[in-house]
């Protein structure tokens, strides 16, 4: 039988040198005490950020016209969520890498129909509003061509619309029941009732905020606030948090790809899928490093280890 050849990047020499006393329990205890003290010092000095959550109520009270402009796109199916594709709906294929349409293959498991979930269903929960009830009946029984025409006329008029003295004023003609619905939805939003209706659609208890978050993300209010706090995607957004806190600094490599071409330019439409694929490859390379010739030799060749084990090399 031939003897296995020693590979310095795979095999380790047998250590025949000295051993020193080592109190592992004492070391662990000291580490816990020191880290606990350091944590207390950092917490006392720097606290932690806690910017209050935005609500549809706060959004529609701060910028009612942005709310209405978003709501009409939810109704006519042109909002970001309405045109998103999987996992919310069939409106698009979703991002892809060449022929791989992963999002589409995985299916629509978080169903969202913006017109019905964000507008019609919440309005249907309002009691004792005969004019609204008539408008909703007219809308739901209309053909899709008729609905599209009403919505287009309303959207056109919205550019000259305004919100004044607690009333939405949009000079829309031939918009059918849409003005009544939009005014009622705005009033509902400003009262806070829409926040509740969106989360309690399936019952009293809830922990799922998918719908109000998607609705708010379609508007400008959430994003403008993020821009002001330097949190948007082109500002290394997701790894940061409000204030001057380190945030998820460990996501720097993932976030970096979004800032550089071609991910930020020609590959932009599928940037998320491509960045994830790229990161998966890099992660696999890291995990499988011990088996990858070349990469596993770098530590031996760059010789940083001489600094780490300098005492050892002095003694041999």
């Amino acid at each position, binding site marked *: 039988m031939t003897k296995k050849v020693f590979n310095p990047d*795979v*095999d*380790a*020499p*047998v*250590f025949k*040198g*000295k*051993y*020193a*006393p*080592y*109190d*592992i329990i004492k070391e662990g205890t000291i*580490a816990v005490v*020191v*880290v*606990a003290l*350091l*944590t207390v010092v*950092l*917490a006392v000095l*720097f*606290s*932690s950020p*806690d*910017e*209050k959550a935005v609500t549809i109520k706060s959004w529609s009270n701060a910028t009612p016209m942005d709310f209405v402009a978003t709501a009409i796109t939810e109704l006519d199916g042109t909002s970001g969520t309405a045109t998103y594709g*999987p*996992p919310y709906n069939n409106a698009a294929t*979703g991002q892809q890498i060449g022929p791989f349409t992963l*999002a589409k*293959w*995985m299916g629509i498991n*978080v169903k969202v129909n913006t017109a019905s979930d964000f507008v019609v269903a919440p309005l249907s929960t309002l009691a004792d509003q005969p004019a609204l009830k008539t408008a909703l009946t007219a809308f739901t029984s209309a053909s899709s061509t008729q609905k599209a025409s009403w919505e287009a006329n309303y959207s056109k008029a919205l550019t000259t619309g305004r919100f004044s003295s607690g009333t939405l004023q949009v000079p829309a003609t031939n918009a059918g029941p849409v003005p009544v619905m939009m005014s009622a939805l705005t009033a509902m939003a400003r009262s806070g009732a829409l926040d509740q209706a969106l989360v309690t659609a399936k019952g009293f208890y809830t*922990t*799922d905020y*998918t719908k109000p978050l*998607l609705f*708010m*993300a379609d508007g400008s209010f*959430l994003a403008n606030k993020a821009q002001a706090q330097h949190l948007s995607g082109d500002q290394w957004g*997701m790894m940061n*948090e409000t204030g001057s*806190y380190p945030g998820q*600094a460990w996501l720097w490599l993932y976030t970096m790809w979004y800032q550089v071409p071609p991910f930020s330019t020609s590959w932009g439409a599928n940037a*998320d*899928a491509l960045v994830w694929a790229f990161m998966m490859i890099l*992660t696999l390379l*890291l*995990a*499988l*490093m*011990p088996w990858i010739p070349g990469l596993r030799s770098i*530590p031996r060749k760059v010789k940083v*280890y001489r600094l*780490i084990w300098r*005492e*050892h*090399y002095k003694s041999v």
Partner: protein
Amino acid sequence: MTTEIDRQWTTRLRKTVVEKLPPEKLLPDTQPAYVASWIYVFGVTTLAALAIVIATGCVLAMKGPLWWHLSSTGHFVNSLHLWSVEIFFFAMVIHLWGKYFMAAWRGGRQLTWVTGVVLFLTSIGAGFTGYVSQTNYDSQWISTQAKDGINATGGGAFFNVLNLGQMLMWHIVLLPLAAVALTAVHVIYVRIKGVVPPFEEEK
């Protein structure tokens, strides 16, 4: 001749465990003289920070997800949780780079390396689900941004970052369980195989 007791699963497991990890390896009282650098501090620092992260997380869990918005004590515990997480990741990343430059996978230690990398990824998931479970503006913004990345992979069909209940469960049950289990396996591998020896250099 083996007896019935020798053939028992329990007996076999005990013998294997004692053989692979005798008490003097599990709780050693000496170590090779080459383990003498500040870089070795970062492994135990990561473990210590994990203990503080779990302890402060348990206090937050006792009072529920909204407590820290409503009480100054709660806010302070949240700050302890945040900063212990920052120390945890800081120490873990330096530990990882240190081990890379030592080529610490040598001598049959490949699985120690792999469990470490998987543990790093699990921790990123635990940190992320924590950030989207804060029930404040940060969690709203981070989740609405992050959904596009996860949806693009197809993962959004099963892992909905906008669903607070789901994210909180991953953050306080599933990922901590995985992280603690992986940490145990990682540390046991280190104890079984010992600390990687220095490269042999030609004289």
